[in-house]
């Protein structure tokens, strides 16, 4: 019987297989950041261990880093200590690090792909659940805890429990104005926050093949929000074109050998998935969340749902809690929900195509009175590219704030946070209670919806903006 993409990558990394034991898998790339690594390095020190493969390890600073005044000492002493700890650990153990101020610094899941380190058929881990992002290249990539970070540092391997496979087949064309973000939000709403549990998801079908690498990263990034072990997309010409010429992409004969291997990775015709989900792309529309988990979403044209409409008692209770926290009333059209803040950025939607999409919507328009719009590029390279294209000027002319690269308001570990009760349309990945700041309320949206929402002051898509640009230009 044929094998799936995930099974092929898994099989190619098994160091040891023994009955009654988890398979021991080799890890091709280990990404580190300041938040989940200090206790792992401590563990190594206590046991007198080294980093086994510093040449397969790379670190960046992202979660804590400020997005303003980066040339000044970091104001928060606790954040500063954590960053200094990473710097000291990387120096002591010989790990490559891109610190704040470095041209390669940025959100770890933006940095790996843009350096060409994330490649098809590799295993990629990081102490961060959004490591699933790298699956867009046909890598088996997943988030791990700090104990596992220490394990990989010490051994470059991980013992892993077997997984099941789920095909998510999206056929047809996405309608105009419908993005990868809308698609993945719709998928999560359909299968639920636990729907992917135990599974490696493989996104396939004509709609997926038609997506750019950046859009594919947005999709795979949020696999974890469906509870999945990982999300993957088979590598194809789009993947190879993205990789060719990047710093760490194979060169010359190695390139040819790599591409030949990468072409063998696609799921075999006769492979069987443990579960299958089908989605008709043409039925989708811009999607937003109304609740406090990423599965609580609806089309922008819908109303805030009535908790009583949920049959499952747990879901009903969860919806009741969510509406209370979000300050929403059942039956309110989502388009009438007004916001205080808009955040464009994160490992989900902080890449150059995302910034271009948001800039195209706000160009010649103004951010609505009383709305604060924060644009945070995913990496320094993304920022430099955006500046070269004049996007920073487009954002600032519209009244948005153009910031330095980092995780920023996605999780509010740095000063970029919502105040209690503030409502935000955010291109990030989690709408959990307090995620963007204590008491803050998050609606997950695409960059296009974020930008249109910033202009109109309430949840909206670019299609709602038909004449706002003329008005602004008068």
């Amino acid at each position, binding site marked *: 019987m044929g094998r799936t993409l995930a099974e092929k990558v898994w099989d190619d990394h098994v*160091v040891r297989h023994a009955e009654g034991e988890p398979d021991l898998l080799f890890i091709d790339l280990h990404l580190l950041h300041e938040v989940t690594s200090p206790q792992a390095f401590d563990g190594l020190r206590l046991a007198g261990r080294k980093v086994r493969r510093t040449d397969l390890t790379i670190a960046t600073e992202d979660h804590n880093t400020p997005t303003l005044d980066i040339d000044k000492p970091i104001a928060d002493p606790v954040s500063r200590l954590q960053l200094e700890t990473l710097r000291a650990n990387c120096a002591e153990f010989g790990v490559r690090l891109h610190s704040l101020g470095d041209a390669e610094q940025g959100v770890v899941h933006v940095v790996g792909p843009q350096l060409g380190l994330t490649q098809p058929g*590799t295993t990629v881990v990081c102490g961060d659940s959004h490591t699933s992002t790298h699956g867009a290249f046909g890598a088996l990539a997943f988030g791990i805890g700090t104990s596992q970070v220490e394990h990989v540092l010490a*051994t470059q391997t991980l013992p892993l429990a077997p997984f099941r496979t789920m095909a998510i087949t999206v056929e047809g064309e996405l309608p105009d104005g419908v993005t990868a973000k809308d698609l993945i939000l719709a998928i999560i709403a359909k299968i639920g926050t636990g729907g992917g549990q135990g599974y490696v998801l493989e996104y396939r079908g004509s709609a997926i093949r038609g997506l750019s690498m950046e859009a594919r990263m947005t999709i795979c990034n949020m696999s974890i929000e469906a509870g999945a072990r990982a999300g993957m997309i088979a590598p194809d010409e789009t993947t190879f074109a993205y990789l060719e010429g990047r710093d760490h992409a194979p060169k010359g004969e190695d390139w040819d050998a790599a591409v030949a291997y990468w072409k063998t990775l696609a799921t075999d015709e006769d492979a069987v998935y443990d579960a299958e989900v089908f989605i008709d792309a043409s039925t989708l529309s811009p999607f937003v969340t109304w609740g*406090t988990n990423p599965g609580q979403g609806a089309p922008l044209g819908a109303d805030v749902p009535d908790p009583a409409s949920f049959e499952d008692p*747990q879901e009903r209770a969860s919806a009741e809690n969510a509406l209370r926290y979000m300050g929403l009333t059942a039956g309110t059209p989502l388009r009438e929900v007004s916001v205080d803040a808009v955040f464009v950025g994160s490992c989900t939607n902080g890449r150059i195509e995302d910034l271009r999409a948001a800039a195209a919507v706000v160009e010649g328009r103004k951010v609505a009175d009383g709305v604060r719009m924060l644009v945070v590029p995913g990496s320094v390279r993304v920022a430099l590219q955006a500046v070269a294209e004049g996007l920073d000027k487009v954002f600032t002319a519209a009244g948005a704030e153009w910031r330095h690269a980092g995780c920023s308001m996605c999780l509010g570990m740095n000063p970029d946070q919502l105040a209690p009760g503030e409502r935000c349309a955010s291109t990030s990945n989690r709408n959990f*209670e307090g995620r963007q700041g204590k008491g803050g309320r998050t609606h997950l949206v695409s960059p296009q919806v974020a930008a249109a929402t910033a202009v109109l002051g309430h949840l909206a898509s670019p299609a709602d903006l038909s004449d706002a640009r003329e008005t602004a230009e008068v």
Partner: protein
Amino acid sequence: MEKFTTHTGRVVPLRRSNVDTDQIIPAHWLKKVTRSGFEDGLFEAWRKDDSFVLNQPQYAGASILVAGPEFGTGSSREHAVWALENYGFRAVISSRFADIFRGNSLKNGLLTVILPQEAVERIWALVEADPTAEVTVDLEAREVRAEGLDSVPFELDENVRWRLLNGLDDISITLQQESEISEFEANRPAFKPTTVQAG
């Protein structure tokens, strides 16, 4: 890792589903560089509400948390496990756990037990009627039992169970496979990427 064989204690009934790791330990606590001292951050936002179950005096000193489905979703932060342990929990019972959280818990000796939702409801009812009721989580017998409750069996991967019962360190076990790791490394294709910077 601390061994886990059997544990008997009182229970906190947490009637919520989708308890994500941002609720278990908010992000601003993640700046700490130690594995201890997270107890005050556990469910920090919810604990500001006096009626929250952890604030109710009858549940003080309980060491088993029984929660709704999809416990531990979201961020991979192991700090969520440390916070539960620092606070004094030895086991968490739910009908469904998020994968990364469950993996993290079992590597730290915090036993996460999957029981059917119907059994979770019965434990909730038992300890809400009598908060002093003690529940036993027995890893050797693989069952949860209490007076007034039929014992409920649970599944756990045999290898994971063996590691927990013996308090074994994963890294030392893997390092015994040194020759297999070296052999694998020697056979990796030349085109595989490295993080070494050119020049």
